[in-house]
């Protein structure tokens, strides 16, 4: 086993990002789309902290990752309120049925 370097953590972040994007694109459940967003933000966070550890950025990466965590929590709260409103109006959470704004 070689030394664990920056590239290994970046690979983990890339896998998280791709899984989040595929989750956002293919899930028809609104809550599943939200989980995809969480995965994407976590992939970005892994990259931030890995760069903070292995380069001379120091504390900046960790601070940015902390801001990302806080913003992700806020985003989940608002998106969940929107999903509940959507469910109250449509009696389903299927995002394919939210096509009222279609031109």
């Amino acid at each position, binding site marked *: 086993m070689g030394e664990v370097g920056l*590239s290994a953590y970046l690979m983990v972040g890339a896998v998280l990002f791709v899984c989040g*994007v595929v989750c956002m694109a293919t899930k028809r*459940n609104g809550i599943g789309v939200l989980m995809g967003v969480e995965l994407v933000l976590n992939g970005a966070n892994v990259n931030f*902290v890995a760069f903070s*550890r292995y*380069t001379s950025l120091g504390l900046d990466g960790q601070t940015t990752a902390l801001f990302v965590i806080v913003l*992700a*929590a806020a985003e989940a709260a608002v998106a969940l309120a929107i999903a509940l409103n959507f469910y109250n109006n449509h009696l389903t959470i299927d995002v394919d049925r939210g096509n009222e704004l279609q031109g």
Partner: protein
Amino acid sequence: MIEQLLFYVFAILTCGGAIAVVATQNVVRMAFWLVVSLGSVAALFFLLHADFLGAAQLLIYVGGTVVLLVFGVMLTASGPYTTIKTSPAEGIIGAAVGVMLLMVLVSSIGNVDWIAISGRLPSSPESPSAADATRKAHAEESLVNSGSTKALSEFNANQQQGRTVRQLGLSFLGLRPDRNLKEGGANGLAPGYFLPFEIVSVHLLVVLIGAAYLARAKRRAVSEDRVSLD
């Protein structure tokens, strides 16, 4: 050795959990695999010497956000559309696009020499070799600055061992004890995070009010009908 072993265990758990989130159709099981993946990311943060960030990840994500999502599942999973399945063709297309995107990312990660790139970053007194050299020069040439230099080296040693709580708190107050401004930063400004911290706090207040406004129960018409019936 044990660190490498832990890294591989938690990296496999993280990636496997994320892939299981994508592959599972049941929303509750997706939430469980999301907990596995996010908890393993917190363990990776601990391995990266970011102790406060790992704790915050466990507290906010695993303890807060995922519980919020599970409550959303509970509140929306009733009715005629309990299981919403993706059609197989869409799943195959999504998997193919995802694999291609992953290959692009992995090849670009493998092709970049990150050590050489990080040498081209803006001059930071925290890079180990330069910081050590300048610190020794400072200690030799002047005993006046020895106090601050000692504090700086102490802070750097703390960060090497992963004790980042005090530094993060001070940086949110606009102080950066891990940077010595006398060694010539970008332009002598303190790179603190006081203003973003205040913006985020106001943002959280706005989100609190907005989420409560959006998710409030709209039962006024029903209650008026009941009043008229009474």
